[in-house]
């Protein structure tokens, strides 16, 4: 059996190593080893004010910043027994969906190297960068920054854009949608795709899915007690796995796939269970996110509050669940005396997906197996900052 080792997998978010065991060009097994150092955000926030916790966890990841902010805020709100008002909730949903579109756009850019023929890649790249710039501007205006939006906080929105900003964003919405359509057209055009895309289209792989909602996420659709996590080197006993700095998670002790395909299959009539279906599901996910963003802009009522009043931090426990770009993101928090953080646990979607990715690579060619790793959009910064559940 041959062994193919990629010391640094390119075009993914973060540092990771990939080992493929192949026989006659067909992958028999795969090891996906993340090697980024552990920054330890769950330990970092212990003893701190919950407001710091939200700012800090947003910096776990520069791709799904708002998702971490939302999940952490939800968990803390659950712990202290408050909820954001209607406007606050809608704005939060909008920030999350913008984040989803941003993150997906970047992934399309990274998988273009696998799925799209070389001569067309730059076209796709420019279209996607144009869309990314436009959608990032929405986050800048609504969230206060294009990355790590500071307006997102416990209880709702820290500061509210003026009504003229909303009008301006509504007026530019058509342009945003058109920019996405231009990119989408190229992404689904089968004439400019590579052989890898054909191979993935043939590989039908239905799996167990985990999703808690479509646009937002719902803590009542997930049972926190059923989530278990182990270090990667305990999951895979191979010598090479010792280098890994990640944990992997299971739901009810089983491997589950989470992400756009899980969401589309659970909540929409999407039935393409091939690996290429993952790409299609992500395109559909982006399109619907933009559509929903347009609706939210119309639903905001400027005369109503954007943040819950009377926020008092006190002891309590809470769970926050949010559908991040890559799937179900779970934050668990315990507040102690003075309402300071006593304990924090974070389970990110890539932790569920790593075992699934390795499973899916089996039976594919080496090139396609590498592409599958990318298609699952592993987010190493998120994955290497989470602790073992006891």
């Amino acid at each position: 059996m041959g062994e193919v080792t990629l010391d640094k997998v390119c075009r993914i978010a973060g540092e990771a190593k990939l080992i493929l065991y192949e026989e006659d060009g067909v992958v028999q097994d795969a090891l996906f080893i993340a090697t980024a150092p552990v920054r330890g955000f769950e330990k970092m926030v212990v003893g701190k004010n919950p407001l710091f916790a939200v700012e800090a966890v947003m910096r776990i990841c520069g791709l799904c910043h708002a998702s971490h902010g939302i999940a952490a805020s939800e968990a803390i709100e659950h712990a202290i027994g408050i909820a954001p008002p209607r406007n606050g909730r809608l704005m939060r949903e909008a920030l999350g969906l913008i984040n989803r579109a941003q993150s997906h756009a970047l992934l399309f850019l990274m998988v273009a190297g696998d799925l799209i023929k070389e001569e067309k890649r730059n076209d796709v790249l420019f279209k996607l960068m144009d869309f990314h710039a436009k959608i990032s501007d929405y986050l800048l205006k609504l969230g206060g920054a294009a990355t790590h939006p500071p307006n997102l906080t416990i209880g709702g929105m820290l500061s509210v854009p003026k009504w003229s900003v909303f009008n301006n964003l509504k007026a530019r919405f058509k342009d945003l949608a058109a920019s996405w359509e231009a990119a989408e057209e190229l992404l689904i055009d089968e004439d400019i795709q590579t052989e890898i895309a054909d191979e993935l289209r043939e590989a039908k792989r239905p799996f167990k899915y985990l999703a808690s909602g479509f646009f937002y996420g719902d803590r009542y659709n997930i049972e926190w007690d059923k989530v278990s996590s182990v270090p990667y080197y305990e999951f895979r006993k191979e010598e090479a796995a010792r280098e890994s700095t990640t944990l992997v998670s299971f739901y009810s002790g089983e491997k589950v796939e989470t992400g756009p395909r899980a969401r589309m299959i659970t909540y929409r009539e999407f039935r393409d269970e091939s690996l290429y279906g993952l790409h299609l599901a992500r395109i559909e996910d982006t399109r619907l996110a933009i559509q929903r963003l347009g609706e939210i802009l119309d639903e905001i009522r400027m005369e109503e509050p954007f943040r819950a009043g009377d926020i008092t931090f006190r002891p309590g426990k809470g769970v926050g669940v949010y559908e991040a770009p890559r799937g179900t993101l779970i934050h668990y928090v315990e507040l102690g005396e003075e309402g300071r953080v006593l304990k924090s646990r974070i389970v990110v979607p890539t932790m569920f997906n790593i075992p699934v990715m390795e499973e899916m690579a089996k039976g594919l060619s080496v090139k396609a197996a590498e592409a599958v790793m990318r298609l699952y959009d592993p987010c190493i910064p998120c994955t290497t900052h989470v602790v073992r559940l006891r």
Partner: protein
Amino acid sequence: MEKLKVLHVDFAGCEGCNVSIIRAYPKLMDSIELDISYLRDGPPKYDEYDVALITGGACMNEPRVLEELKEIREKAKVVVAFGSCASLGGILRFARGGQEPRPDHRNFQPINSVIPVDYSIPGCPPTPQMLQSFFKFFMAGNESRLRLFKVTAGLKKLSGFDLIDDVVLTGLCIGCGACELSCPTGAIRLVEKRPTLIQERCIRCGTCYIRCPRASQLICLGGEKP
């Protein structure tokens, strides 16, 4: 004119700075050739680079990272620390280790604690426009415009606390509000036209200090920060 060869390397960053860099790239394409892991297929293309952009902080408990940093220093003529983690430590200043699966990853330092850095661009993350103007001045050889980045490369920490100590408490503050606008976490509020630090929100990124017209003047003219 030949394009500048620019290498981007990330260490334990959150990818936010990487996104900033890739967003800045379309406008820089005519003048630089960017080698970034988001766009390439294999290992870095060249053995030598004109500029290396480094994002993320150095984990001092991971010898591999320190070795790689030293290699980059040898490969690149100019090293730029991009973003607060790389230039001043930022949020990584709060890391305290103890977390599974690698509880030994306790200490993160800015890049200039390991290798000499030529320019530092703090921000969480710095905007794409920051990088575009950096390269504009860099290629024009406009040293006076780059002075702030050059001086910052010698600093290892800056935060809202330094801003309050050096500018507000000394009576130098003119109440312009640049700090409030630039803060990426909303940790600074102007009260009676003077900044007030909401301590629990400050992540030590140093953006306010760099943006403050008085503070930046102080470090540029006086040379070293007290």
